[in-house]
Every structure is written in structure tokens, then in C-alpha cells.
């Protein structure tokens, strides 16, 4: 994992920002893909069984996190290895406000996004202020995530190691974001959140702030010599990234009815934010989404195949842990064969 994997097309291939026609076609194309994609995915609950749906929901939560992570680390070039911190802030804000104060998760989403963005900006400011770059920045974010884990485990007000259980309501409630188990709404809501997150990515990449952030990522010295406020450009990327990731956390608590320190702040969570983006393509709009669609259902698919294997695989029946092996192999192959991720590599093939 080096910074060189963060890439963008050579300058002469990018549409010039001041040419309105070009700019429009790019943004318009992305928006059309977004609308069509959402429309297609919205039909999924109609064909999935209840368990298939729960896997799809887990995948959507990964995707929202990965899109968030990608804003800061892909477009902003600040590699975060501690996104669990922001996911956890979301999960715990939602849990605390709901369980102890009866506040609707819809409100928690906004509160958590603002809180998480503030925390993220503070951390990033400290790291950048003291010139931590590359792997040192990544390690610092990792350390912060671990610190939050320890703090939560020792705070009485956050139930220490016990975590929070969301109360099960007797009937559906929009305001409390709780429905019958297996309701397609549980799928459509995170799908809508993901759509908004992708929309924010598209608009951000096209905006002045986003262009600045990418310029700073590609060459900080050049960018600041042209008068770009590098710190500000980077902190905007961080704020958006942490806000989106926190919303994924709020939804997690709501859907799973339970969150503990390990589920919110564990280092596995940070990895789950990174992997889809790496597999799909760092620093691309669609990479994190495609990566999540590949990684999310993977272990479930392997397990399903192994439960009733086709004839030639019958010797594998009942083995467990094979999904992890497949997952690892896929990861290695993708990193070797497609260093820019699935989406990034395919896109570059077309362009040439």
C-alpha cells in the first residue's frame, strides 16, 4: 500500500474545467449512471430472500463507509487507517441519543455527521500541522481510532464494554427508523444514503474545493505556490469524509440493534472501509461502490456454494474458512493485476 496507488489521469486527458460543455457532460454522465444504478438496485429486495437482503444491507453499509473514506484518502490523498473512529462516533452517537434520550436516529445522523466532521478536522489539523504525511499520517489515524476504543471501554456514560441495545418496538415507526424484520425499507434507506454520498462525491470532485484538494494531493508545493490554501482544501475533504462515514455508523446501530466497542471502533472496521475502495479503485467515483459490491457478498457466496456444492466441488462440502482464503486470493490477484482497482483499471483501458 504505497501512495503511488493513488492516481489520477494525466492532465491532458482531463476536461478543462473552464469549458462548460465538457464539464457538463462529465457530471451529467455520472448523474445518469447514479440514477440508473439506484433504480436497478432498488429492485433488489424484490428478488432477494430475507437473508440475501441482510447481506445486501451489510454491503451497502460497507459501500457508504468506503465512499466516505475515498473522499479523504482517494481524492484528498490523506491515507486514513483509522476510519473506525468516525464510524464508531456515528454508531455510538446514534445509540446514546436513542437509548438514553429517545432521540430519533434521523436527527442523530445529522448530529453524528457534524460531530464526526469536527473530530476528524481536529485530528487531521493536528497531523498536518505537525507535517505527518503518508504512512505516518495513516499510523496517527490508526492510533486515534484505538484511543477512542479504549476511551469508550472505560466511560460509564457509554456503558463501558457492554455497548448499547436498541429497544425493539412493537410496531413500525418511521421516526424511530424501525420496521418489520425483512422489510425492504431496511435496504432502501441505506441505498438512499449511499446515493446521497455518491452525489456528494460527484459534486465535490467537480467543485473548486475538490479540484484544490486533488491538486494538493498531486503536488502540494506546486499547489501552494499557486496560492491554494492547502490546509483548508484538505480539511474540507476530511470533514466530508468523516461526516459520511458517521452516517453509516448511525445506520449500523439502527439495523443491528446492538453496538459494542469492538463493532464500532475495532480495527477490523477501519479495514472494511479501505478494502472496497482499494479493490474498486482509489480516487474514483465508482470504485468504492463496485468494490463493496464485490467484497460484501463474497463470503456469503462462497459459503452458499459450499453448503450445496456442485458435483466437482463436493469434497469441499462443510469446510469453513474457505471464504477467507478466496477473499485473500482475490485481494492479492487484484492488487497485482489491477493496481488501480477494478474500476480504475477498466477505465484506463478504455481511455487508451
Amino acid at each position: 500500500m504505497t501512495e503511488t496507488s493513488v492516481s489520477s489521469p494525466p492532465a491532458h486527458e482531463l476536461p478543462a474545467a473552464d469549458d462548460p460543455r465538457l464539464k457538463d457532460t462529465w457530471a451529467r454522465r455520472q448523474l445518469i449512471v447514479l440514477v440508473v444504478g439506484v433504480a436497478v438496485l432498488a429492485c433488489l429486495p424484490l428478488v432477494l430472500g430475507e437473508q440475501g437482503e441482510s447481506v445486501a444491507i451489510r454491503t451497502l453499509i460497507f459501500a457508504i463507509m468506503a465512499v466516505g473514506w475515498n473522499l479523504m484518502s482517494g481524492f484528498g490523498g490523506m491515507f486514513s487507517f483509522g476510519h473506525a473512529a468516525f464510524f464508531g462516533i456515528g454508531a455510538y452517537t446514534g445509540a446514546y441519543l436513542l437509548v438514553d434520550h429517545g432521540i430519533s436516529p434521523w436527527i442523530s445522523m445529522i448530529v453524528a455527521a457534524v460531530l464526526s466532521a469536527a473530530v476528524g478536522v481536529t485530528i487531521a489539523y493536528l497531523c498536518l500541522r505537525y507535517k505527518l504525511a503518508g504512512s505516518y499520517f495513516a499510523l496517527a489515524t490508526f492510533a486515534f481510532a484505538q484511543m477512542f476504543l479504549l476511551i469508550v471501554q472505560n466511560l460509564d456514560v457509554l456503558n463501558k464494554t457492554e455497548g448499547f441495545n436498541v429497544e425493539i418496538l412493537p410496531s413500525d415507526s418511521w421516526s424511530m427508523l424501525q420496521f418489520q424484520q425483512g422489510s425492504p425499507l431496511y435496504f432502501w434507506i441505506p441505498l438512499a444514503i449511499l446515493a446521497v454520498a455518491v452525489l456528494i462525491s460527484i459534486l465535490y470532485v467537480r467543485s473548486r474545493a475538490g479540484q484544490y484538494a486533488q491538486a494538493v494531493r498531486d503536488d502540494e508545493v506546486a499547489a501552494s505556490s499557486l496560492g491554494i490554501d492547502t490546509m483548508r482544501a484538505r480539511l474540507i475533504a476530511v470533514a466530508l469524509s468523516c461526516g459520511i462515514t458517521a452516517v453509516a455508523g448511525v445506520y449500523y446501530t439502527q439495523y443491528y440493534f446492538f453496538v459494542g466497542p469492538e463493532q464500532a471502533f475495532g480495527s477490523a472496521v477501519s479495514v472494511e472501509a479501505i478494502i472496497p475502495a482499494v479493490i474498486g479503485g482509489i480516487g474514483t467515483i465508482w470504485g468504492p461502490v463496485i468494490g463493496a459490491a464485490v467484497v460484501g457478498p463474497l463470503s456469503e457466496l462462497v459459503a452458499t456454494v459450499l453448503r450445496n456444492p456442485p458435483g466437482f466441488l463436493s469434497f469441499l462440502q462443510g469446510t469453513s474458512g474457505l471464504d477467507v482464503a478466496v477473499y485473500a486470493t482475490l485481494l492479492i490477484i487484484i492488487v497485482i493485476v489491477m493496481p488501480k482497482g477494478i474500476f480504475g483499471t477498466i477505465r484506463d483501458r478504455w481511455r487508451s
Partner: protein
Amino acid sequence: MKKIASVVTALVVAGGLAACSGSDGGSSDSSTITIGSIHPTSGALAGVGGLMDDGAKLAVADINAAGGIKALDGAKLKLSSGDSQGKAEVGQSEAQRLIGDGAVALVGTYQSDVTQNVAAVAERGRVPFVIDVAVDDKILDQGYKYSFRVQPDATSMGTSGAESLAKIGEDSGTPITSVAYLHIEGAFGDSVFKAFEKEAAKQGITAVKEITYPATNFSDATTQVREAAASNPDVIVATGYFPDGVLIAKAVSELKPDIRGLYGIANGAFDDGSFPQASGASGQEVLSANYHYDANSKRVGDIRTRFEKKYGKPMETASILSYQAVEVIAAGLEKSGSDDPEELREAISGIEIDDPLLAFGGPITFDERGQNKNATVIVMQIQDDAVEQVFPKDFATKDLVFPVGSNG
């Protein structure tokens, strides 16, 4: 345009992939009844998870061999296994899959956080869930109606662990007054310790020093044991899982603090059949207060013998609990005479099962929270490389040696 088309294609393909993983409709004709079993059969806990899954399988095979569910015209049981991978959210989707495939009841899951999620699924899916192993009190504090637990909870284990320790001290002629308590960080260690501390004060154990160690990357217990020894306690108490338990036993035998014994409560190592081998000389005469299979029971001996023959591994307590949980469900089916989950829940909530496989103080029967009222701990001790039951007398297989080393 070509690019849009291909992105859409990619999305559709991804959707298709996800769709493939949908349930393929578990057929449950009237003569088979499906029970879902959720354990960590892959990942770090795969060893114990696999044993527990096998324990549930053996119970199903035994019940079927004995003629199935008689109240339902000899209907046969079928076990569908799910793998939680040790993760709460995976456990949740496995529970949904099994219920979707027509499971009328669930057993699981070994870990408290996974069990919390599965309990919520069972509650919302209105399917009874019999918890074989999971210690946290909080699981049943939600007021769930569909969850039942066979083993004692953290509070009762911490409490009776303290009672037994005080009693053992008195019986030896010198009461125990000070303890250093080592426990793993997290809900499990915290909750057992809290209960112990409360009861210890009542029992005259006035000085209790708490020392915690991390749940991950714990590779040497010397520092913690040295800290424990510094307070000059009568006894060092330890609560945790298998690997850390072995490390603690080794550190104690290396540092040789002046204590009257090392005493585990709800400890995943000190009464495990493979502990004497893993710890060697350092495991000798280590004490352990825990739930345990009843070594004096003929029925248990028979089940354990057949298990070892069939699966090639000794059947540990966790695995026996999975077997017992399936028996609870079978007894519920017999009692209700129906495979409707609602009626099954009714039946289980009022059930009374004599001759439990565990060394409990009475039949298995559930209070309004779903907790087995008669679940108790007993005290074991490693003697001559074997786990022996030593306290209380009713369950003893060997005499207690306390303070340790007093046998010369």
C-alpha cells in the same frame, strides 16, 4: 455511452451476484423439523465453535435414533448449521437465513456480542433461541421473550465463585481475606469481576485488587502477575479465555508468588481437557470455578465416549451445552406437540428437564427472564494431568488440595 452501459452492466452483475446468495428455500416437509445452530466455525474461535456445532449434531442424531419427536408421530430433527465467523453482524444474517429456511428454533453462539444480535433477530422473527454458551447478563436484560439460557450468567458465576472461594478458605482453617484479580478487558471480564467484588465483600474478602489485560496481542502475562503478586494476596483469581489462561498459569509458576492458590472463575482454560497438556507442570493444582459437565453422570460418560469416537476430539463442556440446548428444544417439541415456534416458546418457558448433563443444582427450568434457575458453578482442580471435580462434595471426583502444594 459505452461506458454507461458497462457500468450499468457491472451493477446488474453485482446485483445478480447478491441475488444468487438468496435463500434456496429450505424444504421442511412435515416429517422433519429444522433447528438452526450458529457458532464461530471459522476464524479465531473455530476450534470451540466446531466442537459446539458437532455437539448439536450429535444430539440431533441421538434424538432421531431414539425415534424422533414422539408427540409429532416420530418426526425427525434436522440441524442446519450457520457460521458466525465470530462477528456479530454475520451471526445476525446467519440467524435470518436459518429462520428464513424454516428453522423452528435456534441454538448458539458462544460469544456474548454475537448472541445479543441473534437474540434480537429471534425476538423479531418470533422463534425461540436457546443460548448454549454466552455469559453476559445483559443479553436477557432486554426483556426478550424468545431467548433462554442454559448456563449461569456472569453475575451468578462471579457471585458463586466468591462464595466457593470463601468456603474453601474456611474449610482449610485459614479464611481468605485478600485477592488479586486478573481479568481480560471487555464485557465478559468486567461483569464477572464486578459480581465477584460485591460478593467477596460480604464474605469477608476485604482486599480485592483489580488488574486487567488486553484481549488482543496478549503474549506474556509476567507483568500482570508480578503486579498481582506485589499486593501480597492470599489467592490470585483469573477470568479470561484459553490462551491467556495458559499464559497466566505459566507466569505464576515461573514467578512463584507466595500465594495459597491460583483460582479461575468462568475461566476458559483452567478446566479445559487440553489445559494440563498445554500448561505442563505450571497447571498442577490450579483451581477453577466454572459450569462443567457432570463427570459422575453415566449419561454424560456415554455421550462423551461416542462423541470422541465419531469426531476424534474430546467433548468439552461448551460442546455438552450445545447438546443440552438441542435436548431442551426437543423436550419443548414433545411438550407442545407442535412445530409452531410460538407454541414451542410457550412450552420451553415452562419446561423442567431432570438429569441435566451439567453439574447443576437441580433440573433445567427457566425464570421469567429466560435464565436457567438452577445453573450453578462447581470447582475443579488439575490433579495428575486431569481435570477433577473437587467442590462441592456432591459433585467431587477427587479430594480438594488447598492450599496448593500442601500434599507435599
